[in-house]
């Protein structure tokens, strides 16, 4: 082909030269004239080659160079596109990987897909996948021995003392052979042998080992205290193994035979009725699941005869034992609505994210495509072939897509590696290794979106009427309106941007209000959470212990008074009792009331003013519920327009209590949600050894020093009580809203991103309209239109789309604010403030974004605008 072309050109030149020579020219002159007449051999050949499509490969580099130069002039566009692509790929993949790990993958242990779960049906026979007792496990294991290896684990929460720090930690009591059945290998040390170990020993999770010992291998063999008893560290589990639950992570494992040592009150080992153990098993080589099932059925019927009390359900028949693959059991245990909610939620979130990302990419591509109509038309007129132009535009897409996708994949891989190997947060046993299919799907979807939206406007341009585009005439009538797709995208962006801005604004305002209002009192109160160890004795001894402690704390200089509560009422958490109240019409009504139980002097200590009546006194506690205190909101709700003092409330169908005081409502319960805030009922505290108690200490000054003394005092009691830390009530409130703080940050970042994208979209729109209407603007200016009317002309569409998007956004924000109000004090002023702030910020930024390109329309000199076309 190429050779033939050369030959044809050569022939032509030769003929021309011969003709020139015949006409009397010198040889050299003749050649020059021939070449000149031809217009350059190279150019000719090039045009030919181009048209015949033999240069594709050579062109790719030229295309990429050109694309790079052209994109370099729009660095913002490139950066935002790449960033959007990368972040969406990473987040999308993470979401789908999480669902996949949580629901569809087996436990991340060797041969996890062949692990077997064994269940005993529950007391009413309805739930077949119940847990079993340790005694049952022993019987099951003995009978199943020839066909399967069984093990069990019971979830517990113990106080762990490591290097003098006491912490309440969740872990499991496990049967011997548990790690053998799980087939995990220790990260350090060795797992306990099957024979009962004579020294109490413990296996730590990787996370606990890292945080408490800094991954020091000399930790093996050291001693820690579990509920006050010394245990030797035997091994550390691998990072990925966090027990067999997908919802909760185990931090340690202790052989169940040591249960009486650390938890003497619960009879874990002997009592058949204590069904705390989840059972697992591995089939031996060649054994079938059916063989295991039939052996377990034999045990079940034998136990039904031997232990009728524990093995009969409420219908009178014997309990049923079920064995199935662990993953099947897990899947069956997820309620269908829950499953649909999780999958639906994540899919919605994931696709929502993809949709936003696609919308942003598409909108930017469309804007760019539109702005380039003229450039493309010019190039077409200059003789570029359409195919050539499309290749060129594809190269430009590739320059954005390829780095964006690579960055996204790298980010996804890094996140996955980080999460699945280092486990920065205590995640349960979920297989979170990278899901390549999800990654490929998401990256593919985004790249497709980019290509489609990048090429659509380009194709449209390439097929358009070159002359019209070149003259810029289509701006006159038909092109002045923005296509529905582009307008829709801008509306969506504006709406999302307003929602995110409003949400972050709301949370920020609510946090500010939360942090400022009434916090002076909270800063003067120190709190310490107490849990009682077995060595603390029964409830009576615990009560004496707490009284003693309070007396000693009161003796610390600077402490005004000390009290206690069972629970700190904060938004988002609640405890309730059933109460019977006789209202004004003498009607007795049963209702659920929010409660907390508090010790004497609580209101004085916490600084909550009593509006009527008195504080609890020592005579009120330890005698059941004879007296109660209600908040103002509850008094108004129960006895509107009446005096609450002296009214009676029947609690849990037994104690009839008299209202002896009315208190102001506690912090953070603002009037905005008054209709949904039911007030609070204070009960006198009846201390039980199983309960948690929160000491409240009033210290108007020197809180830090007093907190230190208090912590030391509690530490000296560490054989009987666990008290993780002493903080001010104010600090506690701050910790409670930590998720909201994180949410506010994330929402703020998203809001800024959305704002940026929406603004870019609007600004591009106005610039586009301005370019399209250059001619019209020129004529109008020539006819004497004022600058203002020109700006109005070009901004009209942008303003309309902003208003539509803004209205939708504000409506959505109202819905979002209801969600936020569930955990945050969102008052009317906060809500109005947040929405006005969002609308204001957006309107301001959007106006500037549109005014800047609009002002360029003013620079259009009538003569120039008309002449250009």
């Amino acid at each position: 082909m190429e050779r033939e072309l050369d030959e044809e050109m050569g022939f032509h030149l030769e003929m021309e030269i011969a003709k020139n020579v015949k006409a009397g020219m010198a040889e050299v002159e003749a050649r020059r004239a021939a070449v000149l007449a031809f217009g350059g051999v190279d150019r000719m050949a090039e045009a030919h080659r181009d048209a015949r499509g033999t240069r594709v490969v050579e062109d790719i580099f030229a295309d990429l160079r050109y694309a790079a130069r052209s994109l370099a002039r729009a660095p913002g566009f490139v950066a935002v596109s790449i960033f959007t692509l990368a972040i969406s790929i990473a987040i999308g993949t993470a979401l789908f990987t999480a669902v996949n790990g949580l629901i569809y993958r087996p436990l991340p242990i060797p041969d996890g897909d062949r692990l077997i779960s064994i269940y005993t049906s529950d007391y009413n026979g309805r739930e077949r996948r119940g847990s079993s007792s340790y005694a049952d496990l022993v019987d099951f294991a003995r009978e199943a021995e020839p066909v399967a290896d069984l093990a069990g684990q019971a979830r517990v929460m113990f106080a762990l003392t490591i290097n003098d720090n006491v912490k309440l930690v969740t872990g499991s009591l496990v049967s011997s052979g548990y790690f053998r059945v799980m087939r995990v290998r220790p990260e350090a040390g060795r797992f306990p042998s099957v024979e009962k170990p004579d020294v109490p020993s413990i296996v730590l999770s990787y996370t606990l080992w890292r945080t408490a010992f800094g991954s020091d291998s000399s930790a093996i063999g050291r001693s820690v205290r579990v509920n006050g008893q010394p245990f030797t560290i035997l091994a550390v589990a691998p990072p990925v193994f966090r027990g067999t639950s997908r919802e909760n992570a185990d931090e340690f494992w202790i052989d169940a035979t040591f249960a009486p040592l650390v938890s003497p009150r619960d009879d874990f080992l002997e009592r058949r009725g204590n069904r705390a153990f989840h059972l697992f098993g591995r089939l031996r080589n060649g054994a079938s699941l059916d063989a295991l099932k039939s052996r377990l059925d034999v045990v079940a019927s034998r136990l039904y005869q031997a232990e009728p009390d524990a093995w009969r359900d409420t219908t009178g028949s014997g309990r049923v034992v079920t064995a199935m693959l662990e993953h099947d059991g897990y899947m069956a245990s997820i309620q269908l609505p829950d499953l649909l909610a999780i999958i639906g939620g994540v899919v919605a979130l994931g696709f929502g994210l993809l949709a936003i990302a696609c919308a942003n990419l598409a909108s930017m591509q469309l804007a760019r495509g539109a702005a380039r109509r003229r450039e493309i038309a010019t190039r077409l007129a200059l003789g570029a072939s359409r195919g050539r132009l499309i290749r060129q535009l594809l190269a430009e897409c590739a320059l954005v897509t390829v780095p964006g996708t690579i960055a996204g994949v790298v980010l996804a891989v890094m996140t996955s590696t980080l999460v699945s190997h280092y486990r920065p947060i205590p995640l349960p046993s979920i297989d979170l290794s990278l899901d390549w299919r999800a990654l490929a799907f998401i990256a593919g979807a985004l790249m497709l979106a980019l290509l489609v939206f990048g090429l659509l406007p380009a194709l449209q341009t390439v097929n358009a009427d070159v002359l019209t585009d070149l003259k810029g005439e289509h701006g006159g009538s038909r092109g002045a309106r923005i296509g529905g797709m582009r307008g829709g995208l801008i509306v969506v962006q504006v709406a999302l941007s307003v929602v995110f801005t409003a949400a972050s604004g709301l949370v920020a305002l609510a946090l500010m209000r939360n942090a400022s209002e009434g916090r002076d009192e909270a800063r003067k109160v120190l709190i310490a959470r107490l849990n009682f160890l077995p060595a603390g004795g029964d409830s009576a001894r615990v009560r004496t212990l707490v009284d003693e402690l309070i007396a000693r704390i009161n003796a610390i200089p600077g402490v005004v008074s000390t009290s206690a509560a069972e629970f700190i009422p904060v938004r988002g958490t609640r405890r309730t009792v059933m109460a019977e109240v006789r209202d004004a019409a003498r009607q007795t009504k049963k209702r659920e009331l929010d409660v907390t139980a508090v010790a004497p002097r609580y209101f004085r200590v916490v600084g909550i003013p009593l509006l009527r009546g008195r504080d609890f006194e020592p005579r009120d506690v330890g005698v059941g519920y004879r007296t109660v205190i209600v908040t103002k909101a509850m008094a108004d709700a129960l006895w509107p327009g009446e005096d609450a003092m002296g009214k009676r409330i029947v609690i849990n169908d037994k104690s009839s209590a008299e209202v002896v005081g009315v208190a102001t409502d506690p912090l953070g319960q603002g009037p905005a949600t008054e209709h949904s805030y039911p007030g609070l009922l204070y009960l006198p505290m009846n201390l039980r050894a199983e309960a948690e108690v929160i000491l409240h200490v009033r210290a108007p000054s020197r809180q830090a020093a007093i907190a230190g003394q208090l912590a030391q005092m509690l530490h000296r009691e560490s054989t009987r009580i666990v008290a993780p830390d002493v903080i001010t009530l104010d600090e506690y409130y701050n910790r409670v809203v930590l998720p909201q703080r994180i949410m506010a940050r994330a929402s703020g970042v998203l809001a800024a991103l959305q704002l940026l994208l929406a603004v870019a979209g609007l600004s591009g729109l106005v610039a586009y309209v301005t370019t399209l209407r250059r001619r019209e603007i020129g004529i109008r200016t020539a006819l004497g239109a004022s600058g203002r009317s020109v700006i109005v002309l070009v901004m009209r569409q942008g303003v309309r789309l902003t208003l539509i998007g803004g209205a939708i956004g504000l409506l959505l924000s109202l819905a979002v604010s209801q969600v936020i109000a569930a955990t945050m004090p969102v008052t009317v002023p906060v809500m109005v403030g947040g929405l006005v702030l969002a609308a204001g910020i957006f309107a301001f930024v959007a106006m500037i974004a549109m005014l800047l390109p609009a002002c360029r329309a003013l620079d259009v000199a009538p003569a120039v605008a008309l002449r250009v076309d």
Partner: protein
Amino acid sequence: MPRETPADVLQGTLDLLVLKTLALEPMHGWGIAQRIQQLSREALTVGQGSVYPALLRLQNRGLIDNEWGVSENNRRARYYRITALGRKELKAETDDWRRYAQAVELILGAV
């Protein structure tokens, strides 16, 4: 009023002229340019660089095809030849052109 310098062939009419030339006899690219010049009694020159793109265009539309042959000076040359489709197109375009030229003449001839 005869012009001093020959006019360039109007864009769009070149294809018509090339077709007409080839309808007379198969010809190579250089010959086509020469023939147009000669038939127009040197009134028209064909930008030689535009002959080949025109040939390619016509070929892509199936109006002409080509084969290698030997030229009058014993050189290998590519000869272009009009197809049946080309002849039909030539007739249609010739009629169009005549109508157009008459219309222009009528206007220019108006007093």
